[in-house]
């Protein structure tokens, strides 16, 4: 019998929570060590996914299926393919790093914090492996609660409640409309095939009339676009990122945002392929606005965390631009860029968190010349910044290059506009880096800052390893996703030839 790896991955953190409940509240070190052990064990459990994953096939692997509510066609159905594999590994890889990063940062209500972190981990993995729409929706919503608590309880006292509620309501708004769309889809499937099921893979082949695809694409798309976040639904992001504790920002940026882009890949596009083609211009243009607008706004930020938050809007714009090309390099680039963004933006938030722990400020104006007292910090910061900009040899370049390549094939204008985003990225990152790190130490408080400790270096070492690895030899990762992407593209290609006008949609006519 095959080991149910995915169930272990989902429920092991839950078992970990139960274990933590029995530990003493006051034993903060013990709690952190226990959580560290749990998350490392989880990471080890996830390694077999990588090693025994068969990159030659687009089929779901490690599939587990059990009836949950059979009369309703709901089952506990999980599986992994190329799209989800890397994201799951990113999640399990980052969680121990996050726990390590809380060592000094989180000093009160440690137990509750760790419980939230583990619950979040369980929920995130659940989202990435669900192949049943109901199950997916449950995980999608459940995961909101721990994140909401992380921002609201451990965030920046001044505005944390505002940010937490904004985060919750924005995400909930999108997902509730998605729930209605899921129900419409469910009953449509039942009406056309006679069997009622929430099984995602069965629904892929369904021939849905275009006017229904149109609305359902928008309903699903809104939920995911808010999560990504795409312009103009991004306004929750800067607040949530800025107010969240460091680890919250890291997970938010590295994993939660990816749920949006993953949602497009897994649900929106394959379920409603004709509508997806129809919406290419709209979503590409929104993505481009996100890229350029995010970059320009970043440039003007005074707060480091806010700057990185807006840079996320820009980076995720690239991902969306790539996905909506429906070309091999575009989609592959989009997937790898999701991972890249997780690594480099996660690292950037950690970097800001570390300086915040030392100085209790994140304002760019308060710094300057930090490379003198903190040379190791400066070196790591520089590598991560360059990776975020997309310097060849580091991971960001691979993703952005592939995306622009794919875009160039389909629409040259989009590619040119998108490329300006790379230039702007260089502007805001390097300008920020210059103001923070170079020059004379102007503020006396910065003169005696301690450089990174071994623990902090240990946090970055694995991140930088992968930043360089993806930059130098991305095939290790691209090979795993190739078959899935090919299958996805073939599916999308079939649906290409539909020409519809908007008036037909509103009159509910089939093309």
């Amino acid at each position, binding site marked *: 019998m095959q080991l149910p790896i995915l169930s272990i991955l989902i429920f092991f953190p839950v078992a970990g929570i139960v274990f933590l409940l029995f530990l003493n509240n006051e034993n903060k070190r013990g709690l952190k060590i226990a959580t560290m052990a749990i998350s490392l064990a989880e990471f080890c459990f996830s390694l077999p996914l990588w090693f025994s994953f068969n990159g030659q096939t687009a089929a779901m692997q490690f599939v587990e299926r059990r009836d949950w509510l059979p009369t309703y066609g709901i089952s506990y159905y999980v599986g992994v393919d190329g799209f989800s594999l890397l994201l799951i590994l990113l999640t399990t890889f980052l969680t121990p790093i996050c726990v390590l990063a809380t060592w000094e940062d989180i000093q009160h209500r440690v137990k509750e914090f760790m419980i939230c972190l583990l619950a979040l981990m369980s929920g995130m993995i659940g989202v990435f492996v669900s192949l049943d729409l109901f199950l997916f929706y449950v995980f999608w919503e459940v995961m909101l*609660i721990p994140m909401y608590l992380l921002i*609201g309880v451990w965030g920046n006292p001044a505005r944390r409640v505002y940010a937490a509620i904004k985060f919750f309501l924005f995400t909930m*708004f999108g997902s509730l409309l998605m729930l*209605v769309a899921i*129900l419409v889809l469910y*009953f449509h499937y039942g009406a056309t095939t006679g069997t009622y099921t929430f099984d995602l893979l069965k629904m892929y082949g369904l021939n849905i009339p275009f006017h229904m695809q149109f609305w359902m694409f928008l309903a699903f798309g809104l939920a995911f676009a808010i999560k990504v976040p795409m312009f103009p639904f991004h306004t929750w992001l800067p607040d949530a990122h800025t107010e969240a504790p460091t680890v919250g920002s890291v997970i938010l940026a590295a994993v939660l945002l990816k749920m949006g882009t993953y949602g497009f890949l897994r649900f929106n596009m394959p379920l409603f392929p004709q509508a997806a083609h129809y919406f290419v211009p709209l979503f590409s243009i929104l993505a481009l606005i996100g890229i350029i607008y995010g970059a320009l706004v970043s440039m003007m930020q005074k707060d480091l965390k806010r700057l990185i938050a807006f840079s996320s809007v820009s980076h995720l714009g690239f991902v969306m631009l790539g996905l909506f090309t429906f070309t091999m390099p575009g989609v592959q680039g989009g997937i790898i860029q999701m991972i890249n963004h997780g690594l480099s933006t996660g690292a950037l938030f950690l970097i800001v968190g570390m300086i915040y722990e030392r100085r209790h400020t994140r304002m760019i104006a308060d710094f300057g010349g930090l490379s003198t007292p903190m040379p190791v910090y400066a070196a790591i910061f520089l590598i991560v910044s360059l990776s975020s900009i997309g310097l060849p040899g580091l991971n960001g370049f691979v993703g952005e290059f592939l995306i622009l390549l794919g875009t160039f094939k389909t629409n040259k204008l989009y590619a040119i506009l998108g490329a300006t985003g790379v230039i702007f990225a260089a502007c805001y990152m390097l300008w920020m880096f210059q103001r923070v790190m170079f020059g004379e130490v102007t503020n006396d408080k910065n003169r005696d800052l301690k450089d990174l400790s071994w623990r902090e270096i240990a946090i970055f070492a694995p991140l930088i390893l992968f930043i360089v690895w993806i930059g130098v030899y991305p095939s290790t990762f691209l090979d795993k996703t190739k078959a899935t992407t090919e299958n996805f593209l073939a599916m999308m290609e079939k649906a290409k030839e539909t020409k519809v006008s908007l008036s037909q949609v509103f009159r509910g006519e089939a093309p």
Partner: protein
Amino acid sequence: MTLNIPSFQLSSIGPALTLTVTAILILLLDALSPKGRKTYFPQLSLAGLALAAFQAIGLWGRTGTDFARMIYLDNFTFFFYLIFILGTALTVLLSRQYLEDYGKNMGEYYALLLFATVGMMLMAAGAHLIMIFLGLEIMSIAVYVLAGLFREDARSNEAALKYLILGSFASAFLLFGMAMLYGAAGGTLYLGDLAGRLAGATALQPLILLSIALLVVGFGFKVASVPFHMWTPDVYEGAPTSVTAFMAVGVKAAAFAAFARVFFLAFLAMKMDWNMLLWVLAVATMTVGNVTAIAQTNIKRMLAYSSIAHAGYLLVALVAANQLGAVSLLYYLLAYTLMNLGAFGVVILVGRKRDSYLNIYDYSGLGFQHPALAAAMALFMFALAGIPPTMGFVGKFYIFSAAVKAGYIWLAILGVLNSLVSVFYYLRITVLMYMKPAEADLGPVLFTPAQTAVVAVTAFGVLWFGIFPGFLYDLAVNATKIFPGL
């Protein structure tokens, strides 16, 4: 002239009979036993309720009518029996310490509670409109008195008086509607016959529509739907908290039982006519309830408006008027019973002696002073907001799927948007509990075993049946087979 007494079986109304006997016994014992030795009434009530539950389970599966076709014997009825018994039992458990603090732990309280439950049972079982009306009155009169239990408290008096006057008014509407229906149907009020008779009476269509409208007013009042909700906040706030909990779950469930039975059995052919009306009522109820709840700072008032909003969600199930709608109604009422009683249990525990802490700001900092209590409250809030993995989510999921299945996609969209609004005020409680420092030291909370048990059991139920809803779903499907037209 001879008087024919039709044959009947007492076991058909076994649960109601048991509760009546228990209630009378309590009243007698109360009168006969010396002062100061009257602490066993809760136990006695619970024993009666347990027996009634046992009887109801024994009846499960029986079909037909009894008492000259006055009451139905079917799983729909028995399902509601169990909801009522559960709601009443949890209320009894919550009451004792709460009432003792007020010096009101009296026999008549428990007797009235049981009488009200009997009324609810008759409403759910009624096969004749007069039977439903009698049940409604038995229940209402007992609840009027319960609302005014704290005679010395002006707000309790206000609650009782307001409820009595407006309630009588609504009952009159209901009765008037029945009278017109009697005329239109040619002299029958048996639910089973009505559908056939009304189908034949095409010339009397306006009269029938008027009577439907009047029945909607009567039932709408009892379920607290907009625009018949004006009494709800004041009565819920003024009544003793345990009675509020009882009203919010029991009265609502009973009214919905009758509402659903009458409309699904007698008026199903005229679905087109009343669907639009209920559609508007549902949207108005959800919206007014949720939006007004945002502005409340008294927790009881907030839960009152939230209960109005929940009546709106339940109306959506009625609008859908399909089998799934009926199932979702049953499931949701059970879910609502558990989560709302749990929430009121926390309110009573936090409120402590004589309701000293009813402001929502009294919950500030609760999360870290009483973690378990706050976690339970957070669970109930998330459940009421409809966030998985709780019963509240599954219930809403069923209701909105029923609406989508019936083609009311816009209603489902308005419903989910309303859930979003409700998230805001439910979240505020969790914000206060976890994200605000305590304004003052909350001091010790007296965890009496009975009240703690209610919170623990409901919390467990809300979570367990939220993750494994299959059993209750099948039960509800079984119970709604009685509506052939759905």
